């Protein structure tokens, strides 16, 4: 039985204490329990605080207080078994639903049964002699959060309106406290989520205020900015962190702090994402980053409070892109010419400064020596220094380290950080060391120029003054570059060799030089059809033949390529030997014919024209003997340009037995020109559009006005034009003019 105390005092006391309790803690459960406890026994025998879930869902009891602990427990248990139905008739539910307080001053069994949540609940209330109840809604920010109920049991003073007012007052404050607690919980939750996200993000994120202080940074940011922890970043003086780096834009120009997007946000700008190249000053390590900044603004004033900076590390992708475009460019340079010392110099220039400060290429020459074929450096003074170094201290194939070692092993070497002691040990004398130190290489890569069968040389890359250092990624690119260059060098060598083969074979087929015959001008021209590499089947010669007599030879072996070249060599040498032995033209052709016939493999056909020339004296005509074997007849062009064919057609050599050739005598007068040619000339052009004999005769008309060399050049031009630049067969021209 409670004593009725002066209500106002109780009320004030209660409210003050409740205020104290609620201010002391934001822990919802504790607070509510304490508030409920306060009302007992002053105001009530039993007090419950019920809250409803968000979205008007279930009703949950958060506090029960009673002087009788057992009763409190039982009520808790009851509520757990029979939670209040939010849409039901229970007065608490109706208070929550309506948001209005309710006073049930005197309750009877009938009333209680009417809103009980089942018979057990009814029995509970009746047994415990529920008598009077005042319920106040917990309202905050316009929302009903629950209800506070005070209950008197048994014989007691029923609640009156003032009690209800007090309950409402208490409830109002409790509602505020609950709301605070919820707000606090929400903030905590948002913060927790943000933290969880930021920790797991690979991207580095910082939050910067208008003064440039970092108010927040995640772990990735700490790592990117070379700090031991996010806290270190946040403690640092504004701008001091960025001093650790050299920040460049993608063109290599240095960026100032206020050009960074975050800073620009505070100036009211809306900057685009910025691609930067960030170099750690201490180690030379280089990263490529995309910096994106967005503002956190104050909703009321629109002022930018913070800048959120997101740093995306695209170093790998960027490196790969750069590497690809570099390789493509290098490939282009290497493919541009067969002169590999040129192209390698081009590649060295390309590599600097894109991938290194200095680049040199060494190649093993045919004597087994290591020869430098290319050198380039950002600083021209270094190039000169490198040259001095190379001249004075050429690496020898047997050296234990450096380029020779890489060439021997075929494996690349990366010296990420050159050790001064190792350098000193490598130097052979003081001057050598001085030169090496002058170059100042801090980081070196040596990669082998690899061809399928062997290592042809090496590419050396150095970082010296730029502050860069090489890493394994750089090594990968250097190896690819060197391999590509190796292939190019090998191709060039093969190409050159093929050319040389052709050249030498060609030289075997053609006379090294034409002898000087007194009183007679001689010129020759040879134009190979198709690719330079294909050795031709035409040959010509001018030989001394007895006293004051010369032999002019022109011939054409059927076919092209090495086999034809072999037969051509046979033809030429056989004719020369026969001439030396003093055979007659008929005899020589016979000898050649027999030699061809005695070749077992297939039929080797050959045509030839032999012209002997005996010179009498100045102003005198020269006597000619013309013998043809299946070859176009030579032309005698007189001083007016009139051309006449000379000689009698004879049998092709090497096929039909016996051959039928005849020597025909004729003369060459002073001023006249004798032209021997192979059928590549009249055959020039497409089959329906050949140069033909007539054209040829027309060409000859111009002859007297031109000097011999010019005449042959004209003829060649005509033929090429006729053939539209693509001859099907070689052309050999031999011209003699009597002065």
């Amino acid at each position, binding site marked *: 039985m409670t004593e009725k105390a002066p209500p106002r005092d109780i009320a004030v006391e209660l409210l003050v204490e409740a205020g104290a309790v609620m201010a002391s803690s934001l822990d919802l459960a504790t607070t509510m329990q304490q508030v409920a406890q306060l009302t007992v026994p002053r105001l009530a025998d039993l007090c419950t605080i019920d809250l409803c879930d968000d979205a008007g869902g279930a009703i949950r009891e958060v506090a029960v207080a009673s002087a009788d602990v057992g009763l409190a427990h039982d009520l808790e248990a009851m509520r757990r078994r029979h939670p209040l139905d939010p849409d039901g008739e229970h007065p608490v539910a109706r208070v929550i639903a309506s948001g209005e307080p309710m006073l049930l001053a005197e309750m009877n069994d009938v009333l209680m049964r009417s809103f009980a949540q089942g018979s057990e609940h009814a029995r509970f209330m009746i047994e415990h002699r529920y008598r009077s109840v005042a319920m106040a809604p917990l309202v905050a920010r316009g929302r009903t959060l629950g209800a506070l109920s005070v209950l008197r049991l048994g014989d007691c003073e029923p609640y009156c309106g003032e009690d209800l007012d007090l309950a409402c007052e208490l409830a109002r404050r409790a509602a505020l406290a609950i709301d605070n607690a919820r707000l606090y919980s929400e903030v905590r939750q948002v913060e927790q989520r943000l933290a969880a996200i930021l920790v797991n993000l690979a991207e580095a994120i910082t939050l910067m205020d208008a003064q440039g202080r970092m108010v927040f940074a995640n772990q990735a940011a700490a790592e990117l900015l070379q700090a031991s922890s996010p806290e270190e970043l946040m403690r640092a003086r504004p701008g001091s962190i960025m001093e650790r780096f050299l920040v460049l834009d993608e063109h290599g120009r240095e960026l100032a702090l206020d050009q960074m997007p975050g800073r620009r946000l505070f100036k009211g700008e809306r900057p685009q994402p910025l691609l930067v190249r960030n170099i750690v000053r201490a180690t030379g390590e280089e990263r490529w980053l995309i910096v994106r900044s967005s503002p956190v603004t104050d909703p009321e004033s629109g002022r930018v409070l913070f800048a959120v900076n997101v740093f995306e590390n695209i170093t790998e992708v960027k490196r790969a892109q750069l590497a690809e475009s570099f390789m493509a460019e290098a490939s282009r340079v290497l493919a541009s010419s067969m002169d590999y010392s040129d192209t390698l110099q081009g590649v060295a220039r390309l590599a600097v400064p894109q991938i290194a400060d200095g680049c040199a290429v060494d190649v093993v020459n045919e*004597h*087994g020596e290591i020869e430098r074929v290319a050198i380039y450096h950002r600083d021209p003074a270094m190039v000169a220094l490198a040259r001095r170094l190379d001249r004075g201290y050429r690496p*020898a*194939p*047997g050296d234990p380290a450096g380029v020779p070692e890489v060439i021997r092993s075929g494996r690349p070497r990366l010296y990420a950080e050159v050790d001064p002691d190792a350098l000193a040990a490598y130097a052979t004398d003081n001057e050598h060391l001085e030169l090496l130190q002058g170059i100042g290489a801090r980081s070196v890569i040596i990669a082998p120029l690899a061809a399928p069968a062997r290592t042809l040389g090496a590419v050396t890359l150095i970082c010296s003054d730029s502050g860069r250092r090489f890493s394994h990624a750089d090594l990968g690119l250097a190896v690819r570059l060197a391999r590509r260059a190796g292939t190019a060098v090998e191709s060039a060598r093969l190409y050159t060799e093929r050319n040389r083969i052709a050249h030498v074979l060609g030289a075997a087929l053609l006379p090294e030089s034409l002898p000087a015959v007194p009183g007679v001008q001689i010129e020759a021209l040879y134009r190979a059809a198709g690719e330079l590499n294909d050795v031709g089947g035409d040959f010509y010669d001018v030989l001394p033949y007895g006293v004051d007599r010369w032999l002019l030879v022109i011939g054409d072996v059927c076919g092209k390529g090495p086999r034809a070249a072999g037969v051509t060599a046979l033809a030429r040498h056989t004719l020369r030997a026969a001439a030396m032995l003093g055979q007659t033209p008929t005899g020589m052709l016979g000898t050649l014919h027999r030699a061809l016939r005695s070749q077992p493999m297939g039929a080797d056909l050959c045509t030839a024209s032999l012209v002997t020339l005996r010179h009498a004296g100045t102003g005198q005509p020269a006597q000619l003997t013309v013998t043809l074997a299946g070859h176009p007849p030579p032309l005698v062009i007189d001083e007016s340009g009139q051309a006449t064919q000379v000689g009698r057609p004879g049998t092709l050599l090497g096929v039909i037995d016996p051959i039928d050739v005849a020597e025909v005598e004729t003369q060459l007068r002073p001023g006249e020109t004798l032209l021997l040619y192979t059928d590549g000339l009249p055959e020039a052009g497409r089959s329906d559009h050949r140069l033909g004999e007539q054209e040829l005769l027309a060409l000859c008309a111009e002859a007297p006005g031109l000097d011999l060399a010019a005449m042959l050049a004209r003829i060649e031009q005509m033929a090429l034009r006729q053939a539209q630049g693509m001859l099907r067969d070689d052309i050999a021209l031999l011209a003699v003019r009597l002065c």
Partner: protein
Amino acid sequence: MGVEDQLGITVRREADRVVIDLDGELDMASAPFLQSALDGAEIEPETMVVLDLQSLQFIDSTGLRAILSLRDQCRERAQQFAVTRGSPQVQRLLDITGVSEHLQTPTA
């Protein structure tokens, strides 16, 4: 062993001649060095050039050709050219090919 180790070339200047001393093997790989040695020696015309083969252990046809080429070059420069006898295996080739017979031997 590098190519340079196969053939040792020493150029000595004596009163009336320049002696090129060969030691080791004169073959396809080392023959080019003989040519460079002659080029590098800068011998004045009218001087006798003597090729000392006494320490030469081996010679093949390329080496032989190199010697003959040296002879031709000396001839062009109006220099006398002489070749000493070589070690037994070298001398064999020099005899077979008639080099010993047809090339001058230096007077003492």
